[in-house]
């Protein structure tokens, strides 16, 4: 089912989304991948504030290629989410409401999602040129020294994603594969 949803993601919208929904996101999301997550965790370990308030935010696991002149961003598709699994439960407990990436998540992440009513979306991996067209602006807001891995604030319009794991823990990767599996 196609849905149009505003981001940051409200608690009510997060709860209404179901695994398998095709969703177009409009509003503000933030990028963070391996190095930014590691640095955020180190800040928390030292008792410091994060550069980004997590409440109802959506994080996109993505490190773009450089933008050509006059463009908002370069190629901008998802990276594999599993590498952020070590850090995600902490951020979910701080209010993170949505994650966009690709690939499997651990049970610990799924449990933290259910506990906090959060959603895991997949963007199509390897469609970075197409996805860049739904990003209107990009601004580095933290960790500029990390280059492509810096935290960026993105304004997106009708950014296409699919709900893979919903706030009840239903997992599209598990159900859809069974539907098309044929024994040979």
């Amino acid at each position, binding site marked *: 089912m196609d849905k149009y949803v505003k981001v940051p993601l409200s608690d009510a919208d997060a709860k209404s989304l179901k695994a398998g929904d095709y969703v177009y996101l409009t509003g503000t999301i933030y990028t963070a991948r391996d190095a930014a997550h590691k640095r955020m965790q180190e800040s928390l370990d030292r008792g410091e504030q994060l550069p980004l308030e997590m409440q109802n935010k959506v994080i996109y696991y993505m490190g773009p290629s450089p933008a050509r002149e006059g463009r908002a961003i*370069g190629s901008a598709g998802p990276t594999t989410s599993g590498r952020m699994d070590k850090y995600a439960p902490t951020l979910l407990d701080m209010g993170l409401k949505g994650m966009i990436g690709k690939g499997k998540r651990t049970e610990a992440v799924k449990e933290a999602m259910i506990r906090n009513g959060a959603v895991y979306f997949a963007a199509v991996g*390897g469609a970075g040129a*197409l996805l860049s*067209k739904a990003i209107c602006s990009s601004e580095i807001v933290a960790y500029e020294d990390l*280059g492509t891995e810096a935290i960026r604030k993105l304004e997106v319009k009708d950014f296409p994603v699919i709900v893979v794991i919903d706030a009840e823990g239903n997992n599209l990767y598990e159900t859809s594969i069974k539907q098309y*599996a044929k024994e040979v």
Partner: protein
Amino acid sequence: MRSINVDIITDNIKEMCIEANHFLSSDMKCAMDAAYATEESPLGRQILGQLQENLQIAGEDMIPICQDTGMAVIFMEIGQDVHFEGGSLEGAIHEGVRRGYVEGYLRKSVVKDPLIRDNTGDNTPAIIHYSIVPGDKVRITVAPKGFGSENMSRVFMLKPADGIEGVKNAILTAVRDAGPNACPPMVVGVGIGGTFEKCALMAKHALSRPVDVSSGIPYVKEMEEELLDRINAMGIGPGGLGGTTTALAVNIETYPTHIAGLPVAVNICCHVNRHAVREV
């Protein structure tokens, strides 16, 4: 003896890095079109349609096909009658990669040290594999490799008693475990035989073979076809969201091995299976 100035190598590699990251080879495009025609899942077809659109945008607007423009893997097949002049060949290759990634708006994805992890800032160094062949030409293959799929690749040191069924099971296990993480539909490169490192290198090299060309060894060709059918019957599908297109090809290379061993390497590549080839 033929002399080649290394600046020519630098210029070619720079151009090839940019070309490979914006344009897929025609065999990959045809395989994607064929998959779109046969995919049974509606969502799978939608994703394959987006991937075709993505390729069109990449080429027209010069936006890399994928933001992971890879670590630059370079195969250098050097004719034994070639003499390089004008500086270090290896330096010239790295310089070509540096210029390609810096001037071509490609992502810098390489860290200086695997544990300290500071970005080198120019995507160097490249991974270079040399081989010496007859003749006075140099054949260069530039194959930028993304790490979503690289991370799902495996080496299995099987026993000779495991036989062909053991080999097939190892390959199917690697693909099943990779699932949605490797950005299916994928291309599966396999090396069977040799030593620990030789089978891994064959698996990598197998990815650069056009996906519409089968192995020249009859039983290997049969195995490629059977494995492709069995992988597509797993149901993983485009984007891992279910469907009948999980792989576009299985490319296998083999080599003699030791009486005690049966090494198998599986190098998985996503649908952005990039390689530019030139002969200098």
